[in-house]
């Protein structure tokens, strides 16, 4: 067991992978989208119920690696109940956290959200895995803002 691996697979990531939150399908969803990473076959299906510009409910299904599954689980917990505009801010912050050395955006988020997103900060050191963690967020964006696309891919 290498220290790098322990870094990447934080206990909380393993925990979310093992006990995913909000797994399943929302009934009568108002929004949905499919996420697909052709590189490794990660696949995420999101269903949402949006009410008055707020994500009233969100659930996911799909087969994916531990990073992707945990990231999706975490995502559902932080965006559930959030306004769409808020969710968009989380997306930006998360994306920056995973792709840039300096990631100030995340510090502006609510402490509880910050904490949850930061468990993925070491993923940045594994560039090939970044897409695993961002796939659910890209999928959320498609579901909310480009529903006609139906599918989010990372290429």
């Amino acid at each position, binding site marked *: 067991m290498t220290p790098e691996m322990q870094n*990447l*697979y934080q206990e909380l990531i393993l*925990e979310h992978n093992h006990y995913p939150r909000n797994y399943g399908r929302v009934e009568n969803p108002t929004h949905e989208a499919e996420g697909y990473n052709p590189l*490794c*076959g990660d696949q995420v299906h999101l269903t949402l119920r949006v009410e008055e510009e707020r994500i009233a409910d969100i659930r996911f299904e799909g*087969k*994916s*690696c531990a990073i992707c599954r945990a990231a999706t689980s975490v995502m559902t917990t932080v965006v559930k109940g959030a306004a769409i505009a808020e969710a968009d801010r989380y997306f930006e912050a998360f994306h920056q956290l995973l792709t840039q050395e300096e990631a100030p955006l995340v510090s502006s988020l609510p402490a509880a959200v910050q904490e949850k997103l930061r468990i993925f900060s070491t993923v940045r050191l594994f560039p090939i895995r970044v897409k695993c963690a961002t796939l659910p967020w890209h999928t959320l964006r498609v579901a909310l803002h480009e529903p006609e696309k139906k599918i989010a891919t990372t290429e």
Partner: protein
Amino acid sequence: MQELVAWARKVREDFPILRSLHPSGRPLIYLDNAATAQKPLAVIEKLADFYRYTNANIHRGVHWLSQEATQAYEAARERVAAFIGAASEKEVVFVRGATEGINLIAQGLRRVWFSPGDEILVTQAEHHANIVPWHIVAEEVPISLRPVPLTPAGGIDLAAVAQAFTERTRLVAISAMSNVLGTEFPVAEVAAMARERGIPVLVDACQAVVHRPIRVQEWGVDFLVFSGHKLYGPTGIGVVYMRAPWGEKLPPYQGGGDMIRRVTWGGSRYAPPPAKFEAGTPPIAEAIALAEALRYLEEKVGWDFIQAYERYLCDYTEAALQSVPGITLYGTARPKGAVWSFNIGEIHPHDVGTFLDQAGIAVRVGHHCAQPLMDALGVAATVRASLAFYNLPEEIDQLAQTLHEVVRFFAHTPSAP
């Protein structure tokens, strides 16, 4: 056995990259050979020497450098022809790689061979390189692919092949060895069945050619392709074998310099094959370096050694992998080359791949450009370890040991939230 391993240790020294360290400081264990092979110093030096001493454009020069380069390039063609047992070096066309090779053949057949409704018989295990070119043809001439299903072990039954032929079958296009399962398919037998029916045969020999020399005439096939970079040669070079009458029959693939006899504004007349299929400046240095790879394999390493040692290494690997709890091996049919695809329980291959990488072990994870096969196996992806004659038993030990660690790591149940 000991002599085989000793010789592997010796030839391994010819590959500078195998002395690399992973950024974590661990020694590189390269088990991604089916994706691309590493290059012996002889090949690297040949490339550099070409540019240092002989570089010129070919076929068109009266000057000495151009003549030397032309001779070296044409000698490379002759060596390739001898290597695959072609009747003439004129049946050997240099291309970028196997993918371009199949596209060249596919577009030629589109124009002179296929009619709407025709079928191509393939196996369920084809690489995208032997699927997508036909889909592109089908956008213009509606043809379809008929895959021969695999046995549960990952082989093909000749009875199933016989059943797959229909009166619309116009081509058999199969890989000689699966890049996912390692299965070696019975090419000669399938080719004989096709010949009986008057149907031409194309063989994707990308993987097969790496593990044993092949003889196109004994196989009795019409077309065969492979890539240089998997055969210890450079990138940017591949080979199309095209049995003599096909070279006349197929129209040229690309137009440009060197493939013509006469050009006027009204039209072009083409040169005879192989020139007809090599428009423009070809990958000159790459062809010469590929020939050097063949020389190195034949004269230094030895194909007898490669076959004997890889057989030993395969048995060793199979035993080692089978010791991993929860492992599923895909492809157990024989004969089988040195490629192992597997999954471990519910652990996602991507997680396994990262774990192995951190241990310095390079394997491939994903669909291996064989999505229809993944669909048939019912998985999105697999982990693939593929071996070359420079891999050592202790590298396999390391692989197995790390896989045990992967199992332990992901077996650990985190405390509930």
